[in-house]
């Protein structure tokens, strides 16, 4: 009798787990399908090659090129800037610092920054802009998003660098390499797939974040011609245009959603292909 009960429990929970698994997958698929179905019907060549005509909130004509271009400028600028900032910090954590305590506190500070919601970065960015007398602009957006993604990039680079065995450091230094030479010629070569993944992670976060660019990069109908002009972004194109009472404007929001999803999909695939491939200098595996 007791055995029967135990068997029943096993069977019951197994079914329960299956149900949980299937429903999670169903919901996640449902999201992708919803976005694709709504997006495909509103996608057209005009949609991705024209800027909105007659104002993004009221104009019925035109597309979302302003947001596509703006998002690319912003994400490219921010992730390049963050990359330049992050790599030395990752080197500091793994090669240069002699104090274990420092390393530990820097890491936990970076983790705290990772957890800070992007709206706080947005508010802080706006605060600094006001203090400096800057206006809403592509540059302000780039700087704010850089602050947002730098902790993410550093920690992602740091995680892969940590996996490099200590022996390799000792081998490098015993051959007379300076710390800089070791960092660039040995460590960086060894972990470069991970570095690419870290970069793409930051880029993906930069292109998808709405709350940090809301007050800093602003929104506009035009493609920015300089760093000091405001820039439209895809997430905000979705957010602003979805609440419009005009159906044609809402179509632009759906189109922006599918474009953004496809970009994220490409980034995800790219990081899998580039980052997953083992470098020829890798000795493990």
């Amino acid at each position, binding site marked *: 009798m007791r055995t029967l009960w135990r068997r029943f429990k096993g069977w019951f929970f*197994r079914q329960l787990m299956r149900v949980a698994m299937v429903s*999670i997958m169903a919901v996640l698929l449902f*999201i992708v399908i919803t976005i694709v179905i709504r997006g495909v019907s509103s996608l057209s060549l005009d949609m991705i090659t024209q800027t909105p005509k007659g104002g993004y909130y009221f104009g019925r004509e035109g597309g979302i090129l302003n947001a596509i271009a703006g998002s690319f400028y912003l994400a490219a600028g921010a992730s390049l800037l963050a990359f330049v900032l992050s790599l030395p910090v990752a080197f500091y954590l793994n090669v240069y610092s002699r104090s274990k305590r420092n390393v530990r506190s820097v890491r936990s500070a970076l983790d705290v920054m990772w957890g800070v919601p992007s709206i706080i970065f947005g508010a802080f960015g*706006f605060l600094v802009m006001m203090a400096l007398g800057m206006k809403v602009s592509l540059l302000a957006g780039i700087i704010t998003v850089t602050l947002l993604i730098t902790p993410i990039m550093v920690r992602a680079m740091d995680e892969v660098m940590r996996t490099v065995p200590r022996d390799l450091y000792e081998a490098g230094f015993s051959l007379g390499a300076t710390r800089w030479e070791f960092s660039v010629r040995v460590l960086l070569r060894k972990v470069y797939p991970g570095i690419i993944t870290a970069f793409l992670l930051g880029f*993906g976060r930069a292109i998808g974040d709405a709350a940090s660019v809301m007050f800093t990069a602003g929104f506009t109908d035009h493609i920015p011609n300089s760093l000091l002009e405001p820039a439209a972004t895809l997430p905000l194109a979705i957010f602003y245009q979805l609440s419009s009472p005009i159906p044609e404007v809402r179509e632009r929001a759906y189109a922006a959603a599918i474009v953004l999803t496809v970009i994220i999909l490409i*980034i995800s695939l790219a990081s899998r292909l580039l980052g997953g491939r083992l470098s020829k200098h890798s000795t493990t595996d």
Partner: protein
Amino acid sequence: MRNRWLVLRVAVDHLAAGVSRLFTLSVLLVLVLIILGLLYKSIPILTSQSILDLLFSSVWKPMKGQFGFFPFIVSTIYVTVIAITISVPFCILASLYLTEYAPRRWTKRIVPFIDLLAGLPSVIYGIWGVIAIVPFVRDILAPAFGYETSGYCILTGGIVLAVMVIPVLMNIMIEVLRTVPIELKEATLSLGATKWETTSRVVLRKALPGVLAAVVLAFFRAFGETIAVLMVVGNTVMIPKSLFDPGYPLPALIANNYGEMMSIPKYDSALLFSALLLFVMIVGFNWLARFVLKRTERYIV
């Protein structure tokens, strides 16, 4: 000649050391500046109203200079708690299934898909919420319980957030469950325990600290989430009495009003105080969670 070359190499090394130290310091400085900036801007509101009044009053009349954050704090907590309550049980069961029961090739196919969804921007979850969940709550769920709602309510916000944190939760949980050594399972099985008894009493227990860590992380993600919630939660200043009432979480408050409130200096200060509040809550809970995790880890191992 050789000597000069060496001097150059060492000089480059020292320069790089200096730069890397400088960059590290400046990244840390940003964190300090955020705290100081928010604190400095909050001073006007903190000196004009007592902190207890700010936190626990529900009178929100910016034009009259009365700022009570209670409705916003309550909304934030409601939405987050709903999200965690829905997503955690599903995620634990599904990750156990994937790591302990399902064939390996399943796991191999599902994990990249979950990775992809973890990278999906929150605004995408928001638009999905508007297209799918808002009508579902309005037309099916609320009438079933005898309520009337526009669909833009606390529950919708909670559901959208729950779905948003699922990929984050699953990712970490699968990672953690995989680290449970197989010897442990074999030992239990050989003592006559059933598969489920092994899974629930050994695997899950061993992985508990990691699972808790995942829950804490998901909690923070949900707590500070702005856009996805803002799009579906209704944004009405009130203390929600039921799941079908609209709410107004703190991040949504900042997003909706910041930038255009410069004409009323106290309003500006109040909004930055709410940003500070959000920051303190997240960092405070984070430290608390780490402390608790350390204790439980010691207890289990």
